[in-house]
């Protein structure tokens, strides 16, 4: 091997070229080939195991069956899109006819009410989780800063946080549902109740990691920076804005990443029970449906949920890399 390398070196007249190729090869192997091998192993074990699991809905789906269902879902989406397009063309034609017959005809546009397709459900889930997360963020930052700055506030709120933090979304949901039904009574609601229920449940569960991390970040500001602020006689507001908040940014981001992970996990459960038309409802409907394809379709949803969760986490990490001054804390 080494003779080969020195030979290519001499041939290319460019020492270091071969070494660099070797390094590149090593990186490719480590970053691409090994993970791919891991995935292949998983697929094989899954495929072998699936054949031996008999359920009331037939054999447990292996990778091939799941792939087929994924394709089915795409086909269904395209069909549904076609149906919607057809519906609108027909409506437009009829309106044109009526207008031709009677110029005073008042145009009525009806929207298409087909069943939600898989991509639409993904979008609903994303919108719900991000809304819930945003609500949690808006609440968590001021609470976290207040607790971090003030020892008394910390002593006051800490027991409450520790008690509410481990509560499952499934326990919150009935309460949220009943309260929302009682409070959110509008003639023409801008948001459906199922959306509000899921969103608030997500917010309630994803609030805590952000509160705790913000508080810890604020409380652990180096004394030197506080002294700088004291020597400059910064006002309380400027102290928070110019010293405390930027100093806590790395910890706030850590909290946000944890919270977003929690939010996405909680969302699926919340959607199942609240019947919010997202991925959670999709899984629940397929479970109730019980056709021979259901397990495969649920498996597609499981993989999609995992993939989106991963992408959300990566997006958050990238955001942290762009916005946080502490690049070291955003390395993983």
């Amino acid at each position, binding site marked *: 091997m080494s003779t080969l390398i020195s030979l290519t070196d001499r041939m290319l007249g460019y020492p270091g070229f071969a070494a660099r190729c070797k390094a590149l090869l090593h990186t490719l192997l480590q970053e691409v080939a090994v993970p791919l091998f891991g995935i292949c192993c998983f697929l094989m074990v899954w495929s072998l195991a699936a054949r031996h699991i008999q359920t009331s809905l037939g054999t447990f789906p292996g990778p091939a069956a799941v792939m087929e269902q994924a394709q089915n879902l795409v086909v269904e989406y395209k069909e549904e899109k076609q149906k919607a397009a057809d519906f609108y063309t027909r409506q437009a034609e009829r309106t044109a006819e009526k207008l031709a017959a009677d110029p005073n005809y008042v145009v009525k546009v009806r929207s298409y009410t087909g069943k939600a397709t898989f991509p639409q459900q993904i979008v609903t889930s994303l919108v719900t989780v991000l809304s819930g997360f945003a609500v949690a963020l808006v609440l968590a930052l001021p609470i976290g800063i207040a607790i971090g700055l003030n020892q008394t506030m910390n002593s006051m709120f800490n027991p409450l946080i520790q008690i509410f933090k481990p509560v499952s979304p499934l326990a919150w949901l009935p309460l949220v549902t009943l309260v929302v039904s009682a409070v959110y009574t509008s003639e023409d609601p801008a948001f459906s109740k199922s959306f509000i229920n899921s969103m608030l449940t997500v917010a309630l569960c994803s609030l805590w990691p952000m509160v705790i991390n913000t508080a810890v970040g604020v409380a652990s500001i*180096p004394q030197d920076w506080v*002294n700088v602020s*004291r020597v*400059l*006689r*910064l006002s309380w507001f400027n102290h928070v804005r110019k*010293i405390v908040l930027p100093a806590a940014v790395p910890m706030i981001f850590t909290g946000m990443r944890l919270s977003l992970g929690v939010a996405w996990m909680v969302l699926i459960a919340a959607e199942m029970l609240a019947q919010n038309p997202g991925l959670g409802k999709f899984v629940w409907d397929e479970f109730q449906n019980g056709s021979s394809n259901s397990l495969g379709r649920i498996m597609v949803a499981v993989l999609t949920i995992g993939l989106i969760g991963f992408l959300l986490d990566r997006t958050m990490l990238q955001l942290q890399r762009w916005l946080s001054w502490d690049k070291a804390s955003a390395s993983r």
Partner: protein
Amino acid sequence: MSIILDISQVDMEFATPSGSFVALRNVDLKISKGEFVSLIGHSGCGKSTVLNIVAGLLQATKGGVILNGREIHQPGPDRAVVFQNHSLLPWLTAYENVELAVKQVLGSRMNSKEIREWVEHNLHLVQMDHAAHKLPNEISGGMKQRVGIARALAMQPQILLMDEPFGALDALTRAHMQDSLMVIQNELKNTVIMITHDVDEAVLLSDRIVMMTNGPGATVGEILEVNLERPRDRLALVNDPGYTGLRAQVLRFLYEKQRKVEPIHSAAQKKPGSKKRSAA
């Protein structure tokens, strides 16, 4: 020369779980306008505590500090501090760190153009114009300390407080920084209190060296006038009998009169002194 700062019979006690710890007892010191004073002593003798009381970051248990006829109760930009580990805000560039101070302290008196010029002037003074828009973790330790000094100078303080400003730097960088500081000082004639435990640094930079006794209950031991002519050149001074004599006096105070009696095995343990340092 008029007295600008009067540290008058200051006692400092810290409450510890095992009762109160007397860090300083009856510290008395008067400093004239434009004077460069070094505080030297063994680590843990309360040098930083004195500085923090003058800065207003700590409140003396007894006695008080008077600056220009006014007693000090809280920190303020009239007593700018150069912190030991630079204390630059890591999310702001060198320029922005100085700008934050200038806007806060002089913002009401300057328009935005004057602010920019004043920030640039101070960065130029410490020879940091070339790296003005770099973040603190992109520049070396010496450069960070330069920016820290620029930030303190930009506040136009009555008195500049330096807490072991070059303690964390390597010997060559430290020498370079001392030379820069002498050039700046020659120009601005600030009143400075500097804490150090480097004997050469103290003799080279100071007009007076205040030598502190060991704690607990540390106080001013001896005061040494440094009458070497300015500007001073470190190479020329190496063989100067006046310089070597002063240096010997400081060393004699530290290692004969105030020899730190400390058994080797307990040296690694936490002393009350080191605790006090971290509290300061």
